């Protein structure tokens, strides 16, 4: 963050702050650069510098916000006036008396860990992408391929008129590589960590190493060709071994979203949906088998959605949401907690300065168990291993789901067999997690995430992290393509 801008915003805000019950300002400055090479041609490089502030006012029970990219005194004055007008207009007509909610007044600093390997210059990055792109061209059936790096740095400032002051700085890096092979009417795409940027983390160039980016072009292209030649995934009820690149999606859709408190309170019912989870389930509902342990974990510095405070100023602290299969706690920030009377976590987050905070899942992880991958494979008489999400669909209560993966392997009589393509499975959240019969140990654990979790009215796409071991489920409805 340039030092001048936040300092000037601090002093401006302090001088302009209105006489109301509560007033906060959230400033966000984000610089990102996307470099992408498709079929050995550099796509137009795109740099974005986004900068703006949101003022939130609570007064006489009402609540209002105004966001602006005009950070001059006049711009902030206008925003404060608009936020005051909305607070006034909503007083006595809101879902809750906002003035009765005791919002935090934090002070502190947070920063992503310093990169262990600095990000090289643009010219070197382009050369690396060109190299991996060229390595994809291994067969005429390889018809499309792309290698990319997305480099983001974000600075945030959270102030309240009565003294809160939190500054947070984040560095994100997102490598990706995808190869499409086609033969006749069949087309298969294989990627590095998923076509939706599963290898997204905080840190520096070391993330490419962790993701296996170097040398990925030839390897991923080879797998795309293998998928073309593979038979379709079989159909039937069988054991399902999900690897972390698919587990992240499974966690996200059928644990993360249903536990979001704003969904449970009904805010999302017109758009993202409601939840099969109700407030009375916390503390007694068996969400999964006794092997299931799920945490909200902002403490992993490399994970995509680690932070010190959320966008309502609550301090982020690790918490179990599901312990030994029992549902303990929802994903809800300070306002949702006050509305529901439930203890939640610090997950009221906004995608940027121009959207208000809502309950998001942040880092939502499955804790490692005790089984090795070999243990789990050996225990399967007939099943399929699936990896890397390709398709996802779930009902608005987050119950009936159907997911597809890029990659599958048959498991027969305790041994991993050949590759299968178009692997899909479907189930119902409320029963699926109870069929969890083994949880992988730390050797199977991987830190994943996605930059593209969509939700909210107005809508927001936000970063979330999901770390998980491989997990084995019994009697799942599995099927293939066509």
């Amino acid at each position, binding site marked *: 963050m340039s030092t001048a801008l936040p300092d000037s915003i601090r002093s401006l805000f302090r001088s302009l702050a209105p006489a109301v019950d509560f007033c906060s300002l959230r400033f966000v400055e984000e610089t990102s650069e996307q470099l992408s090479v498709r079929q050995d041609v550099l796509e137009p490089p795109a*740099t974005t510098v986004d900068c703006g502030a949101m003022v939130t006012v609570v007064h006489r029970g009402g609540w209002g916000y105004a966001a602006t990219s005009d950070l001059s005194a006049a711009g902030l004055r206008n925003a404060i006036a608009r936020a005051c007008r909305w607070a006034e207009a909503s007083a006595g007509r809101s879902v809750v008396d906002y003035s009765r909610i005791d919002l935090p007044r934090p002070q502190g600093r947070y920063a992503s860990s310093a990169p262990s390997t600095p990000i090289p210059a643009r010219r070197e990055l382009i050369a690396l992408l060109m190299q991996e792109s060229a390595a994809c061209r291994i067969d005429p059936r390889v018809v499309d391929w792309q290698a990319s790096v997305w480099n983001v740095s974000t600075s945030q400032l959270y102030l309240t008129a009565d003294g809160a002051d939190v500054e947070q700085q984040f560095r994100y890096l997102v490598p990706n590589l995808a190869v499409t092979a086609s033969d006749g009417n069949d087309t298969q795409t294989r990627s590095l960590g998923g076509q939706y940027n599963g290898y997204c983390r905080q840190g520096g160039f070391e993330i490419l190493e962790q993701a296996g980016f170097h040398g990925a072009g030839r390897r991923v292209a080879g797998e795309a060709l293998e998928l073309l030649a593979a038979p379709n995934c079989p159909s039937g009820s069988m054991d399902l071994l999900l690897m972390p690149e698919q587990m992240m999606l499974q966690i996200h859709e059928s644990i993360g979203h249903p536990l979001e408190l704003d969904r449970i309170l009904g805010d999302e*019912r017109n758009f993202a949906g409601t939840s099969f989870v109700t407030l009375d389930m916390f503390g007694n509902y068996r969400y999964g088998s006794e092997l299931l342990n799920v945490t909200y974990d902002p403490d992993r510095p490399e994970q995509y959605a680690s932070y010190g405070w959320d966008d309502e100023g609550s301090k982020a602290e690790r918490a179990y949401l599901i312990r030994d299969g029992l549902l303990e706690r929802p994903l809800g920030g300070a306002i949702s907690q006050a509305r529901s009377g439930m203890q939640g976590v610090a997950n009221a987050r906004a995608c940027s300065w121009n959207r208000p905070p809502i309950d998001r899942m942040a880092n939502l992880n499955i804790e490692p168990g005790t089984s090795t991958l070999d243990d789990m494979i050996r225990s399967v008489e007939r099943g399929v291993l699936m990896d890397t999400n390709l398709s996802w669909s779930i009902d608005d209560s987050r119950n009936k789901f159907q997911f597809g993966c890029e990659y599958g392997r048959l498991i027969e009589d305790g041994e991993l067999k050949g590759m299968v393509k178009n692997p899909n499975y479907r189930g119902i959240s409320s029963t699926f997690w109870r069929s969890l019969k083994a949880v992988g140990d730390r050797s199977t654990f991987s830190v994943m995430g996605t930059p593209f979790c969509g939700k909210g009215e107005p809508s927001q796409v936000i970063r979330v992290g999901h770390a998980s071991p491989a997990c084995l489920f019994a009697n799942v409805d599995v099927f293939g393509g066509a």
Partner: protein
Amino acid sequence: MRQYFLDLAARLDTRMRDGEDYQCWLSAESTDFVRFNRGAIRQPGHVRQIYLTLTLFDGRRHADMTMALSGSIDADRFVLDRMVAALRSQLPDLPEDPHLLRATEVRSTGHTLPSRLPETAAMVDEVLAAARGHDMVGLLAAGPVYRGYANSFGQRNWHEAASFNFDWSLYHQRDKAVKASLAGFEWDGAALNEKFADAGRQLSILQRTPMSIPPGAYRAYLAPSALQELIGMLNWDGVSEKSIRTRQSPLCRMRDGSVALNPAVTLSEHTAGGLAPAFQGDGFIKPDRVVLIEKGRLAGSLVSPRTAKEYGIDTNGADAGESMASMELAAGTLPASRVLAELGTGVYVSNLWYLNFSDRMNGRITGMTRFATFWVEDGEIKAPLNVMRFDDSLFRLLGDKLAGLTDEREMLIDTDTYGARSTGSALLPGALVKDFVFVL
């Protein structure tokens, strides 16, 4: 705002060096967003945002930079200077772009629809009054949206429209709800009350004991909003020429001629009938209509300038993503008044939800029913249906299983607000299908 944009372009005109030129795209809005839940206000506020994407060219080398601007030319001219300098420093690192296609013919256009909207707070008063006694949840978005394009050759394009979009649901309980919307350029309180009354009537049916049906194939009617979700899947690399060329589009088999849809299906990108700007980010002007599927056969695709250059074909002014912004499906002959009678016994689907491909190359799509979905017997609505998952082929649903499209169509204004308010729209009939496969 238009003059501000022209001033930005004029500033850029003065900053180019020999051999350099530029194009820029402005995306801005000043929007009141009021979120409701339980018939009360949840989050009211205002967003004023101005983004400028500047592309600097030096021969065939080019790079883009997008920045948030303040809206004051006195402050932003210095931001522009910094953008030009930053891009200028990038260009030497970049190779020449073989897929670059420029709009060199100057075709300036202008479309301005000044605001005729009342104060948003007044709209909110009417919404809350109409919602009294209902469990209403939704979003009201109102205000002007601006898009602008300019380049060094002197082309200037402007699109400005002030509109509102109120998208809401009335809930009975749990997931049983009626979805409704009202959008336009002039607020109409009477239309709002009429929509609430209509939704209320549907809500009374939702209060009946819901039914569940076993998985299987059922005769079904897909209302325009449900059909929009299905056809909308063609915006996932379906009608994109690049995706067809790289064998990633589900329509590859239609291009090969091995698959055709029902002759009743004619699909267009109809820019002249939509709300989106008639120009795109590289300055190309969109034709009034691009026919994509004609009488069931693939007749065209959306070709961005970059794809056009890559494959040596003509562009048709498609955006870089090559997706429809003003979708139009031709009306059929099924009288809308006879939908229930023609459905006979089966499922009436008002909305579909969360669609995705389960086998993209075979056009197989899965998704859920949502909101008001009913079981119909002998042409009469009997009961609300609990949500069902379908998994079926688009080729079959719009092919041999299509029993008819309605003779009346509905204009659906896109409610998307990711990053910015959408200018997309869709004009669609409803569809009667002989069987629709539910799997869970």
